């Protein structure tokens, strides 16, 4: 079980690296007016989204679900895990929204400013803080 936990954490770190840098790329992309550069940003975004963020998210979920399974169903009744799963759900919604933004960039139809992306760039940080605190401080929540 500890090995699965370790792989869950490793995939989570890779997942967050994508969630952190993708909106940062959008910030630069939204403020660039150079056609060639925009093409390059799009390539960088697509690679980060489809080849890093998505697979890492899938692995994090698979290992996470395996951990719940191995722990047994009573763990699903703990408050910390319910809150954590709520945050994970929001994080997935956020990730799909990033995919939506990516498609609008690829059609040259982005309508958001760099400032907007700067703001949404803070959201995964909040989720990370909430999730890590819930997991590490779970004795306080049960």
């Amino acid at each position, binding site marked *: 079980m*500890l*090995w699965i*936990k*370790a792989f869950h*954490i*490793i995939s*989570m*770190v*890779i997942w*967050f*690296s994508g969630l*952190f*840098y993708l909106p*940062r790329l959008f910030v*630069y992309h939204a403020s*660039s007016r*150079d056609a*060639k*550069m925009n093409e*390059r940003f799009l390539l*960088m975004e697509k690679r980060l989204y489809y080849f890093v963020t998505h697979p890492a998210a899938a692995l994090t979920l698979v290992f996470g679900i395996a951990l719940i399974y191995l722990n047994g169903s009573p763990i699903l009744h703990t408050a910390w895990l319910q809150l954590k799963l709520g945050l994970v759900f929001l994080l997935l919604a956020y990730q799909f929204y990033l995919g939506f933004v990516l498609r609008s960039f690829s059609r040259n139809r982005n309508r958001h400013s760099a400032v907007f992306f700067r703001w949404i760039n803070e959201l995964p*940080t909040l989720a*990370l*803080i909430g999730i*890590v*605190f819930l997991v*590490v*401080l779970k*004795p*306080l929540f049960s």
Partner: protein
Amino acid sequence: MLWIKAIHIIALVAWFSGLFYLPRLFIYHTKWKDQVSHEHFKIMEKKLYYYITTPAGVLTLIFGFWVMSYNFSGYLQEPWMHVKLTLVFLLVIYHAYLGKVVAAFQQDKNKHKMGFYHFLHALPALFLILIVILAVVKPGGVIS
């Protein structure tokens, strides 16, 4: 103590996000050599290194040693901790080296080819895998 451990983990995630993406930027920077790209990548590298990666690395180390300070002699008797600290030491050297590369790009003095940065890009994943396994599985350890 658990609060400190939580902050250590949060800082580590931010640190690795920088360690993962900086060499990726170097790859693109060597691939696309025109002036517009060059100027963009210079700014992106500088911001990622100085505003994210370095502060997050410093916080990870401070909070890591803080966690250790609660049971310093105990942790130092754990074999996995010796390996982990060695890996962290190597990671700090890697981090400093990335700073050297960032500075070289700033002064238009990059001497490496793309293949080199592909190699560099693979290293932090290796560190992450080993460090997390050591910290979670604690092979041969007594402290839970």
